[in-house]
Protein backbone atom coordinates (compact mmCIF):
# COMPACT_ATOMS: atom_id res chain seq x y z
CA UNK A 1 0.00 0.00 0.00
CA UNK A 2 1.56 3.30 -1.06
CA UNK A 3 -0.64 5.65 0.95
CA UNK A 4 -2.47 4.69 4.09
CA UNK A 5 -4.56 6.91 6.34
CA UNK A 6 -5.46 5.48 9.74
CA UNK A 7 -8.29 7.10 11.67
CA UNK A 8 -7.21 10.53 10.55
CA UNK A 9 -9.14 13.43 12.08
CA UNK A 10 -8.56 17.12 11.61
CA UNK A 11 -9.99 19.95 13.65
CA UNK A 12 -9.52 23.64 13.07
CA UNK A 13 -10.20 26.16 15.77
CA UNK A 14 -12.24 29.06 14.56
CA UNK A 15 -13.11 31.96 16.86
CA UNK A 16 -12.37 29.77 19.82
CA UNK A 17 -14.68 26.93 18.80
CA UNK A 18 -13.37 23.79 17.15
CA UNK A 19 -14.63 22.72 13.75
CA UNK A 20 -14.15 19.08 12.91
CA UNK A 21 -13.35 18.97 9.22
CA UNK A 22 -12.35 15.33 8.84
CA UNK A 23 -13.39 12.50 11.13
CA UNK A 24 -11.64 9.16 11.39
CA UNK A 25 -10.72 8.83 7.76
CA UNK A 26 -9.43 5.42 6.72
CA UNK A 27 -8.05 5.37 3.21
CA UNK A 28 -5.72 3.24 1.16
CA UNK A 29 -4.18 3.95 -2.22
CA UNK A 30 -2.15 1.29 -4.00
CA UNK A 31 0.84 1.93 -6.20
CA UNK A 32 -0.11 2.89 -9.75
CA UNK A 33 -3.76 3.41 -8.86
CA UNK A 34 -5.85 6.35 -10.04
CA UNK A 35 -8.17 7.25 -7.17
CA UNK A 36 -10.73 10.05 -7.26
CA UNK A 37 -12.35 11.53 -4.19
CA UNK A 38 -15.71 13.19 -4.80
CA UNK A 39 -17.59 15.30 -2.34
CA UNK A 40 -19.56 18.50 -1.91
CA UNK A 41 -17.74 21.81 -1.56
CA UNK A 42 -16.50 22.49 1.95
CA UNK A 43 -16.30 18.86 3.05
CA UNK A 44 -12.58 18.84 3.70
CA UNK A 45 -11.33 17.40 0.41
CA UNK A 46 -8.53 19.93 0.14
CA UNK A 47 -7.63 19.36 3.78
CA UNK A 48 -7.23 15.68 3.01
CA UNK A 49 -4.85 16.51 0.16
CA UNK A 50 -2.91 18.88 2.43
CA UNK A 51 -2.59 16.15 5.04
CA UNK A 52 -1.14 13.67 2.56
CA UNK A 53 1.11 16.41 1.15
CA UNK A 54 2.34 17.17 4.66
CA UNK A 55 1.27 20.81 4.40
CA UNK A 56 -0.96 20.22 7.42
CA UNK A 57 -0.76 17.75 10.29
CA UNK A 58 -3.66 15.59 11.47
CA UNK A 59 -5.20 16.29 14.88
CA UNK A 60 -5.26 12.55 15.48
CA UNK A 61 -4.49 9.44 13.48
CA UNK A 62 -1.62 8.70 11.13
CA UNK A 63 -0.80 9.38 7.50
CA UNK A 64 1.64 6.85 6.05
CA UNK A 65 3.32 7.08 2.67
CA UNK A 66 5.40 4.08 1.69
CA UNK A 67 5.03 2.86 5.28
CA UNK A 68 6.60 6.02 6.72
CA UNK A 69 4.68 8.55 8.78
CA UNK A 70 4.33 11.94 7.04
CA UNK A 71 5.94 14.73 9.06
CA UNK A 72 6.08 17.50 6.44
CA UNK A 73 6.05 18.22 2.73
CA UNK A 74 8.25 16.04 0.55
CA UNK A 75 9.07 15.74 -3.11
CA UNK A 76 7.62 12.22 -3.18
CA UNK A 77 4.17 13.86 -2.93
CA UNK A 78 3.66 16.83 -5.21
CA UNK A 79 0.42 18.80 -5.40
CA UNK A 80 -1.27 20.28 -8.45
CA UNK A 81 -3.58 23.00 -7.12
CA UNK A 82 -6.79 24.40 -8.55
CA UNK A 83 -5.02 27.59 -9.50
CA UNK A 84 -1.86 26.54 -11.24
CA UNK A 85 0.33 28.33 -8.65
CA UNK A 86 3.04 28.97 -11.24
CA UNK A 87 5.74 31.49 -10.38
CA UNK A 88 4.91 34.53 -12.54
CA UNK A 89 8.51 35.72 -12.71
CA UNK A 90 9.75 32.46 -14.23
CA UNK A 91 9.09 31.33 -17.78
CA UNK A 92 7.47 27.98 -18.49
CA UNK A 93 10.74 26.07 -18.59
CA UNK A 94 12.07 27.65 -15.39
CA UNK A 95 8.78 26.85 -13.68
CA UNK A 96 9.08 23.20 -14.64
CA UNK A 97 12.69 23.20 -13.43
CA UNK A 98 11.93 24.95 -10.13
CA UNK A 99 11.80 21.89 -7.90
CA UNK A 100 14.83 20.34 -9.63
CA UNK A 101 16.78 23.50 -9.01
CA UNK A 102 15.77 23.46 -5.35
CA UNK A 103 17.09 19.91 -5.08
CA UNK A 104 20.43 21.06 -6.52
CA UNK A 105 20.28 19.28 -9.88
CA UNK A 106 22.86 20.62 -12.38
CA UNK A 107 21.50 22.93 -15.08
CA UNK A 108 22.16 20.52 -17.93
CA UNK A 109 20.20 17.67 -16.37
CA UNK A 110 17.42 20.06 -15.45
CA UNK A 111 17.13 21.14 -19.04
CA UNK A 112 16.86 17.56 -20.22
CA UNK A 113 14.14 16.82 -17.68
CA UNK A 114 12.14 19.94 -18.44
CA UNK A 115 12.32 19.20 -22.16
CA UNK A 116 11.06 15.70 -21.54
CA UNK A 117 8.07 16.79 -19.45
CA UNK A 118 7.20 19.77 -21.60
CA UNK A 119 6.99 17.34 -24.49
CA UNK A 120 4.71 15.14 -22.44
CA UNK A 121 2.23 17.98 -21.89
CA UNK A 122 2.67 19.27 -25.46
CA UNK A 123 4.10 22.66 -24.47
CA UNK A 124 7.56 22.47 -26.02
CA UNK A 125 6.83 25.48 -28.18
CA UNK A 126 5.87 27.56 -25.17
CA UNK A 127 9.01 26.96 -23.10
CA UNK A 128 10.01 30.64 -23.22
CA UNK A 129 6.56 32.01 -22.48
CA UNK A 130 5.64 33.52 -19.15
CA UNK A 131 2.58 32.36 -17.18
CA UNK A 132 0.60 35.53 -17.93
CA UNK A 133 0.81 34.70 -21.64
CA UNK A 134 -0.82 31.27 -21.20
CA UNK A 135 -4.45 30.14 -21.09
CA UNK A 136 -5.86 28.47 -17.98
CA UNK A 137 -5.54 25.02 -19.51
CA UNK A 138 -1.93 25.61 -20.53
CA UNK A 139 -1.08 26.82 -17.04
CA UNK A 140 -2.43 23.60 -15.56
CA UNK A 141 -0.39 21.58 -18.03
CA UNK A 142 2.73 23.44 -16.90
CA UNK A 143 1.78 22.71 -13.30
CA UNK A 144 1.40 19.03 -14.15
CA UNK A 145 4.77 18.96 -15.94
CA UNK A 146 6.35 20.75 -12.98
CA UNK A 147 4.94 18.17 -10.58
CA UNK A 148 5.97 15.21 -12.74
CA UNK A 149 9.50 16.55 -13.12
CA UNK A 150 9.97 15.93 -9.40
CA UNK A 151 9.34 12.24 -10.12
CA UNK A 152 6.99 11.89 -7.13
CA UNK A 153 5.59 8.59 -5.91
CA UNK A 154 2.15 10.10 -5.91
CA UNK A 155 0.59 13.01 -7.72
CA UNK A 156 -1.95 14.84 -5.56
CA UNK A 157 -4.46 16.83 -7.59
CA UNK A 158 -6.75 19.28 -5.83
CA UNK A 159 -9.61 20.09 -8.23
CA UNK A 160 -7.05 20.92 -10.89
CA UNK A 161 -9.53 21.40 -13.73
CA UNK A 162 -12.41 23.00 -11.81
CA UNK A 163 -11.75 26.47 -13.20
CA UNK A 164 -11.54 25.37 -16.84
CA UNK A 165 -14.22 25.29 -19.52
CA UNK A 166 -15.73 21.92 -20.42
CA UNK A 167 -13.86 21.63 -23.71
CA UNK A 168 -10.45 22.26 -22.19
CA UNK A 169 -11.25 20.01 -19.27
CA UNK A 170 -12.05 17.10 -21.58
CA UNK A 171 -8.78 17.64 -23.43
CA UNK A 172 -6.84 17.66 -20.19
CA UNK A 173 -8.59 14.48 -19.02
CA UNK A 174 -7.30 12.75 -22.12
CA UNK A 175 -3.81 14.12 -21.62
CA UNK A 176 -3.74 13.20 -17.95
CA UNK A 177 -4.80 9.63 -18.71
CA UNK A 178 -2.15 9.39 -21.40
CA UNK A 179 0.47 10.60 -18.94
CA UNK A 180 -0.79 8.22 -16.31
CA UNK A 181 -0.58 5.28 -18.71
CA UNK A 182 2.90 6.35 -19.79
CA UNK A 183 4.35 6.96 -16.34
CA UNK A 184 2.19 4.65 -14.20
CA UNK A 185 2.19 7.29 -11.48
CA UNK A 186 -0.15 6.89 -8.56
CA UNK A 187 -2.73 9.68 -8.74
CA UNK A 188 -5.04 10.93 -6.01
CA UNK A 189 -7.48 13.33 -7.60
CA UNK A 190 -10.02 15.37 -5.68
CA UNK A 191 -13.07 16.86 -7.40
CA UNK A 192 -16.68 17.82 -6.85
CA UNK A 193 -17.52 16.70 -10.38
CA UNK A 194 -18.87 13.14 -10.43
CA UNK A 195 -18.61 12.77 -14.20
CA UNK A 196 -15.00 13.84 -14.14
CA UNK A 197 -14.27 11.27 -11.45
CA UNK A 198 -15.90 8.40 -13.31
CA UNK A 199 -14.14 9.20 -16.57
CA UNK A 200 -10.75 9.17 -14.89
CA UNK A 201 -10.54 6.84 -11.93
CA UNK A 202 -10.00 3.19 -11.13
CA UNK A 203 -11.72 3.84 -7.86
CA UNK A 204 -14.10 6.65 -6.88
CA UNK A 205 -14.44 7.43 -3.20
CA UNK A 206 -17.17 9.65 -1.81
CA UNK A 207 -16.81 11.83 1.23
CA UNK A 208 -19.58 13.09 3.48
CA UNK A 209 -20.19 16.66 4.55
CA UNK A 210 -18.82 18.17 7.77
CA UNK A 211 -17.28 16.32 9.40
CA UNK A 212 -15.89 14.60 6.34
CA UNK A 213 -15.83 10.81 6.46
CA UNK A 214 -15.30 8.36 3.64
CA UNK A 215 -18.76 7.07 2.75
CA UNK A 216 -17.98 4.44 0.18
CA UNK A 217 -15.99 3.46 -2.83
CA UNK A 218 -16.86 2.37 -6.33
CA UNK A 219 -14.37 0.49 -8.47
CA UNK A 220 -14.72 1.19 -12.18
CA UNK A 221 -13.31 -1.43 -14.50
CA UNK A 222 -14.49 0.05 -17.81
CA UNK A 223 -11.70 0.43 -20.36
CA UNK A 224 -10.31 3.88 -21.17
CA UNK A 225 -10.78 6.22 -22.89
CA UNK A 226 -14.26 6.46 -21.45
CA UNK A 227 -17.04 8.65 -22.72
CA UNK A 228 -19.02 10.60 -20.15
CA UNK A 229 -22.21 9.52 -21.94
CA UNK A 230 -21.39 5.79 -21.89
CA UNK A 231 -24.57 4.16 -20.46
CA UNK A 232 -22.50 1.95 -18.14
CA UNK A 233 -20.79 5.00 -16.80
CA UNK A 234 -24.06 6.86 -16.38
CA UNK A 235 -25.38 4.08 -14.15
CA UNK A 236 -22.31 4.41 -11.97
CA UNK A 237 -22.57 8.19 -11.95
CA UNK A 238 -26.22 8.00 -10.85
CA UNK A 239 -25.30 5.72 -7.99
CA UNK A 240 -22.53 8.01 -6.80
CA UNK A 241 -24.70 11.09 -7.20
CA UNK A 242 -27.45 9.51 -5.15
CA UNK A 243 -25.11 8.89 -2.25
CA UNK A 244 -23.79 12.42 -2.56
CA UNK A 245 -27.21 14.00 -2.76
CA UNK A 246 -27.88 13.56 0.95
CA UNK A 247 -24.54 15.16 1.68
CA UNK A 248 -25.15 18.14 -0.55
CA UNK A 249 -28.52 18.62 1.11
CA UNK A 250 -26.78 18.58 4.47
CA UNK A 251 -24.27 21.22 3.42
CA UNK A 252 -27.01 23.48 2.12
CA UNK A 253 -28.93 23.12 5.36
CA UNK A 254 -25.78 23.82 7.35
CA UNK A 255 -25.05 26.94 5.42
CA UNK A 256 -28.62 28.18 5.83
CA UNK A 257 -28.26 27.59 9.53
CA UNK A 258 -24.94 29.45 9.68
CA UNK A 259 -26.54 32.28 7.82
CA UNK A 260 -29.49 32.41 10.17
CA UNK A 261 -27.24 32.33 13.21
CA UNK A 262 -25.11 35.16 11.86
CA UNK A 263 -28.15 37.19 10.92
CA UNK A 264 -30.27 36.85 14.01
CA UNK A 265 -28.06 36.12 16.94
CA UNK A 266 -26.02 38.74 18.75
CA UNK A 267 -23.84 35.98 20.15
CA UNK A 268 -22.39 35.05 16.78
CA UNK A 269 -20.43 38.25 16.52
CA UNK A 270 -17.67 39.08 18.94
CA UNK A 271 -15.57 36.62 20.87
CA UNK A 272 -17.01 35.10 23.99
CA UNK A 273 -20.33 36.69 23.14
CA UNK A 274 -22.27 33.68 24.32
CA UNK A 275 -20.96 33.97 27.87
CA UNK A 276 -21.72 37.67 28.05
CA UNK A 277 -25.19 37.33 26.62
CA UNK A 278 -26.12 34.71 29.15
Amino acid at each position, binding site marked *: MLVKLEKVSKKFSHNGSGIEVLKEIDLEISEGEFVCLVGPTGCGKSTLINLIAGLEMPTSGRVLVGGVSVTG*PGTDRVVVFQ*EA*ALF*PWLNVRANVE*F*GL*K*MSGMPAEDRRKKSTEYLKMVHLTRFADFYP*HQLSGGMKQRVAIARALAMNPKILLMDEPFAALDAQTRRLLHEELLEIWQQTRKTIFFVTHNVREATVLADKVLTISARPGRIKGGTTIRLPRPRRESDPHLIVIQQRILLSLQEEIAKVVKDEDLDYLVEKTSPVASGSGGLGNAL
Partner: protein
Amino acid sequence: MRKLVLWLLVLAVWETLSRVSPWIPSAVGILQRVAANLTDTEILSSLGRSLLRMAVGFLGVFVLGIGTGLLLGKFRLLDEIFGTAAMALHAMPGAAWVPLAVLLFGLTQWAVIFTVLLGATGIVMVSTSAGIKEVPPLLLRAARTMGARGAKIFWHVVVPSAVPRIVDGLRLAWAFGWRALMAGELMIGSLKGMGEILSRVAKQRDLHEILAFMIIIAVVSVVIDHLLFRRMERLVKTRWGTA
Protein backbone atom coordinates in the same frame (compact mmCIF):
# COMPACT_ATOMS: atom_id res chain seq x y z
CA MET B 1 -1.21 62.78 -29.95
CA ARG B 2 -4.40 63.89 -28.23
CA LYS B 3 -2.32 64.99 -25.30
CA LEU B 4 -0.08 67.05 -27.56
CA VAL B 5 -3.04 68.87 -29.10
CA LEU B 6 -4.46 69.61 -25.64
CA TRP B 7 -1.13 70.95 -24.47
CA LEU B 8 -0.82 73.20 -27.50
CA LEU B 9 -4.31 74.47 -26.80
CA VAL B 10 -3.43 75.29 -23.20
CA LEU B 11 -0.27 77.09 -24.33
CA ALA B 12 -2.23 79.07 -26.90
CA VAL B 13 -4.76 80.22 -24.30
CA TRP B 14 -1.97 81.06 -21.87
CA GLU B 15 -0.07 83.05 -24.49
CA THR B 16 -3.19 84.98 -25.47
CA LEU B 17 -3.86 85.86 -21.84
CA SER B 18 -0.30 87.02 -21.35
CA ARG B 19 -0.72 89.45 -24.25
CA VAL B 20 -3.76 90.92 -22.50
CA SER B 21 -2.48 91.16 -18.95
CA PRO B 22 1.02 92.36 -18.02
CA TRP B 23 0.85 90.25 -14.81
CA ILE B 24 0.87 86.95 -16.70
CA PRO B 25 4.26 85.79 -18.00
CA SER B 26 4.46 84.83 -21.66
CA ALA B 27 4.35 81.10 -22.44
CA VAL B 28 6.44 81.53 -25.55
CA GLY B 29 8.92 83.66 -23.62
CA ILE B 30 9.34 80.99 -20.97
CA LEU B 31 9.77 78.24 -23.53
CA GLN B 32 12.39 80.32 -25.33
CA ARG B 33 14.29 80.61 -22.07
CA VAL B 34 13.98 76.89 -21.48
CA ALA B 35 15.45 76.21 -24.91
CA ALA B 36 18.22 78.75 -24.43
CA ASN B 37 19.13 77.33 -21.02
CA LEU B 38 19.19 73.79 -22.29
CA THR B 39 21.83 74.71 -24.87
CA ASP B 40 23.96 76.62 -22.38
CA THR B 41 26.94 74.42 -21.49
CA GLU B 42 27.34 75.89 -18.03
CA ILE B 43 23.74 75.07 -17.17
CA LEU B 44 24.02 71.64 -18.68
CA SER B 45 27.07 70.94 -16.55
CA SER B 46 25.11 72.04 -13.46
CA LEU B 47 22.30 69.68 -14.48
CA GLY B 48 24.89 66.95 -14.88
CA ARG B 49 26.22 67.57 -11.38
CA SER B 50 22.71 67.43 -9.93
CA LEU B 51 21.96 64.19 -11.75
CA LEU B 52 25.23 62.68 -10.59
CA ARG B 53 24.40 63.49 -6.95
CA MET B 54 20.95 62.05 -7.50
CA ALA B 55 22.40 58.87 -8.99
CA VAL B 56 24.78 58.34 -6.08
CA GLY B 57 22.02 59.05 -3.56
CA PHE B 58 19.59 56.80 -5.38
CA LEU B 59 22.08 53.96 -5.48
CA GLY B 60 22.23 54.27 -1.70
CA VAL B 61 18.43 54.35 -1.52
CA PHE B 62 18.28 51.20 -3.63
CA VAL B 63 20.73 49.24 -1.50
CA LEU B 64 19.71 50.55 1.90
CA GLY B 65 15.95 50.69 1.24
CA ILE B 66 15.68 47.19 -0.21
CA GLY B 67 18.15 45.73 2.27
CA THR B 68 16.46 47.06 5.38
CA GLY B 69 13.01 46.41 3.87
CA LEU B 70 13.89 42.75 3.39
CA LEU B 71 15.09 42.53 6.98
CA LEU B 72 11.96 44.20 8.34
CA GLY B 73 9.73 41.96 6.24
CA LYS B 74 11.55 38.81 7.21
CA PHE B 75 12.13 39.26 10.92
CA ARG B 76 9.07 40.04 12.98
CA LEU B 77 11.07 41.28 15.91
CA LEU B 78 12.91 43.85 13.79
CA ASP B 79 9.61 44.92 12.31
CA GLU B 80 8.15 45.43 15.78
CA ILE B 81 11.14 47.49 16.86
CA PHE B 82 11.90 49.47 13.69
CA GLY B 83 8.65 49.26 11.70
CA THR B 84 7.32 52.47 13.20
CA ALA B 85 10.68 54.15 12.69
CA ALA B 86 10.51 53.22 9.01
CA MET B 87 7.05 54.75 8.77
CA ALA B 88 8.32 57.91 10.49
CA LEU B 89 11.27 58.09 8.14
CA HIS B 90 8.87 57.69 5.25
CA ALA B 91 6.59 60.44 6.59
CA MET B 92 9.42 62.95 7.05
CA PRO B 93 9.70 65.60 4.29
CA GLY B 94 13.09 65.32 2.57
CA ALA B 95 13.86 69.03 3.14
CA ALA B 96 13.71 68.50 6.89
CA TRP B 97 16.94 66.51 6.70
CA VAL B 98 19.01 69.38 5.28
CA PRO B 99 20.01 71.04 8.60
CA LEU B 100 21.18 67.73 10.03
CA ALA B 101 22.98 66.90 6.78
CA VAL B 102 24.85 70.23 6.87
CA LEU B 103 25.74 69.69 10.50
CA LEU B 104 27.17 66.26 9.73
CA PHE B 105 28.81 66.86 6.37
CA GLY B 106 29.24 70.63 6.10
CA LEU B 107 28.33 72.49 2.92
CA THR B 108 29.41 69.60 0.71
CA GLN B 109 28.14 67.20 -1.93
CA TRP B 110 27.71 64.60 0.77
CA ALA B 111 25.21 66.69 2.66
CA VAL B 112 23.00 66.77 -0.45
CA ILE B 113 23.43 63.05 -1.08
CA PHE B 114 22.63 62.34 2.56
CA THR B 115 19.43 64.37 2.18
CA VAL B 116 18.42 62.36 -0.89
CA LEU B 117 19.21 59.12 0.91
CA LEU B 118 17.09 59.88 3.94
CA GLY B 119 14.37 61.58 1.96
CA ALA B 120 13.75 58.54 -0.22
CA THR B 121 14.85 55.42 1.67
CA GLY B 122 11.76 55.24 3.89
CA ILE B 123 9.30 54.59 1.08
CA VAL B 124 11.47 51.83 -0.39
CA MET B 125 11.80 50.23 3.04
CA VAL B 126 8.10 50.34 3.73
CA SER B 127 7.04 49.00 0.35
CA THR B 128 9.71 46.28 0.29
CA SER B 129 8.72 44.96 3.69
CA ALA B 130 5.03 45.12 2.72
CA GLY B 131 5.81 43.16 -0.44
CA ILE B 132 7.64 40.52 1.58
CA LYS B 133 4.68 40.09 3.88
CA GLU B 134 2.18 39.81 1.05
CA VAL B 135 3.56 36.71 -0.65
CA PRO B 136 0.64 34.61 -1.92
CA PRO B 137 0.38 31.63 0.47
CA LEU B 138 -0.42 29.37 -2.47
CA LEU B 139 3.01 29.99 -4.00
CA LEU B 140 4.65 29.20 -0.68
CA ARG B 141 2.75 25.94 -0.42
CA ALA B 142 3.62 24.99 -3.99
CA ALA B 143 7.29 25.71 -3.31
CA ARG B 144 7.23 23.66 -0.11
CA THR B 145 5.78 20.62 -1.85
CA MET B 146 8.65 20.88 -4.33
CA GLY B 147 11.21 20.65 -1.57
CA ALA B 148 12.08 24.33 -1.05
CA ARG B 149 12.85 25.36 2.53
CA GLY B 150 13.96 28.36 4.58
CA ALA B 151 16.50 30.51 2.79
CA LYS B 152 15.68 28.96 -0.59
CA ILE B 153 12.03 29.86 -0.22
CA PHE B 154 13.04 33.38 0.81
CA TRP B 155 15.31 34.04 -2.17
CA HIS B 156 13.45 32.08 -4.82
CA VAL B 157 9.83 32.77 -3.88
CA VAL B 158 9.40 35.52 -1.29
CA VAL B 159 11.78 38.10 -2.77
CA PRO B 160 10.73 37.71 -6.42
CA SER B 161 7.07 37.87 -5.47
CA ALA B 162 7.78 41.20 -3.71
CA VAL B 163 9.32 42.73 -6.83
CA PRO B 164 6.20 44.64 -7.97
CA ARG B 165 5.97 46.38 -4.59
CA ILE B 166 9.70 47.09 -4.59
CA VAL B 167 9.46 48.69 -8.03
CA ASP B 168 6.50 50.77 -6.84
CA GLY B 169 8.62 51.94 -3.94
CA LEU B 170 11.60 52.80 -6.16
CA ARG B 171 9.44 54.82 -8.51
CA LEU B 172 8.04 56.89 -5.65
CA ALA B 173 11.51 57.15 -4.17
CA TRP B 174 12.74 58.72 -7.39
CA ALA B 175 10.20 61.54 -7.02
CA PHE B 176 10.87 61.97 -3.30
CA GLY B 177 14.61 61.88 -3.87
CA TRP B 178 14.44 64.52 -6.58
CA ARG B 179 12.55 66.85 -4.24
CA ALA B 180 15.07 66.23 -1.48
CA LEU B 181 17.89 66.93 -3.91
CA MET B 182 16.41 70.30 -4.90
CA ALA B 183 15.79 71.20 -1.26
CA GLY B 184 19.37 70.36 -0.39
CA GLU B 185 20.87 72.27 -3.32
CA LEU B 186 18.62 75.29 -2.76
CA MET B 187 19.54 75.56 0.88
CA ILE B 188 23.22 74.84 0.55
CA GLY B 189 23.56 77.14 -2.44
CA SER B 190 27.33 77.05 -2.72
CA LEU B 191 27.42 73.82 -4.77
CA LYS B 192 26.94 74.01 -8.51
CA GLY B 193 23.64 72.42 -9.46
CA MET B 194 20.06 73.05 -10.51
CA GLY B 195 18.96 74.08 -7.03
CA GLU B 196 21.79 76.55 -6.78
CA ILE B 197 20.90 78.10 -10.16
CA LEU B 198 17.29 78.40 -9.07
CA SER B 199 18.23 80.25 -5.90
CA ARG B 200 20.56 82.53 -7.87
CA VAL B 201 17.89 83.30 -10.48
CA ALA B 202 15.35 83.95 -7.73
CA LYS B 203 17.56 86.71 -6.37
CA GLN B 204 17.47 88.40 -9.79
CA ARG B 205 13.65 88.50 -9.48
CA ASP B 206 13.24 87.37 -13.08
CA LEU B 207 9.87 85.62 -13.29
CA HIS B 208 10.43 84.15 -16.76
CA GLU B 209 13.78 82.73 -15.82
CA ILE B 210 12.52 81.22 -12.54
CA LEU B 211 9.62 79.53 -14.31
CA ALA B 212 11.91 78.31 -17.07
CA PHE B 213 14.18 76.60 -14.54
CA MET B 214 11.28 75.15 -12.63
CA ILE B 215 10.02 73.65 -15.87
CA ILE B 216 13.43 72.17 -16.62
CA ILE B 217 13.62 70.64 -13.13
CA ALA B 218 10.15 69.14 -13.41
CA VAL B 219 10.64 67.87 -16.96
CA VAL B 220 13.94 66.15 -16.19
CA SER B 221 12.31 64.25 -13.34
CA VAL B 222 9.28 63.29 -15.42
CA VAL B 223 11.39 62.16 -18.37
CA ILE B 224 13.49 59.87 -16.21
CA ASP B 225 10.36 58.56 -14.53
CA HIS B 226 8.86 57.73 -17.93
CA LEU B 227 11.93 56.28 -19.55
CA LEU B 228 13.04 54.18 -16.62
CA PHE B 229 10.57 53.66 -13.81
CA ARG B 230 7.29 53.55 -15.67
CA ARG B 231 8.68 51.08 -18.16
CA MET B 232 10.00 48.91 -15.38
CA GLU B 233 6.69 49.11 -13.55
CA ARG B 234 4.70 48.16 -16.66
CA LEU B 235 6.89 45.18 -17.44
CA VAL B 236 6.70 43.93 -13.88
CA LYS B 237 2.96 44.46 -13.58
CA THR B 238 2.09 42.51 -16.72
CA ARG B 239 4.42 39.69 -15.90
CA TRP B 240 3.41 39.41 -12.25
CA GLY B 241 -0.23 39.82 -13.20
CA THR B 242 -0.80 42.64 -10.73
CA ALA B 243 -1.87 45.25 -13.29
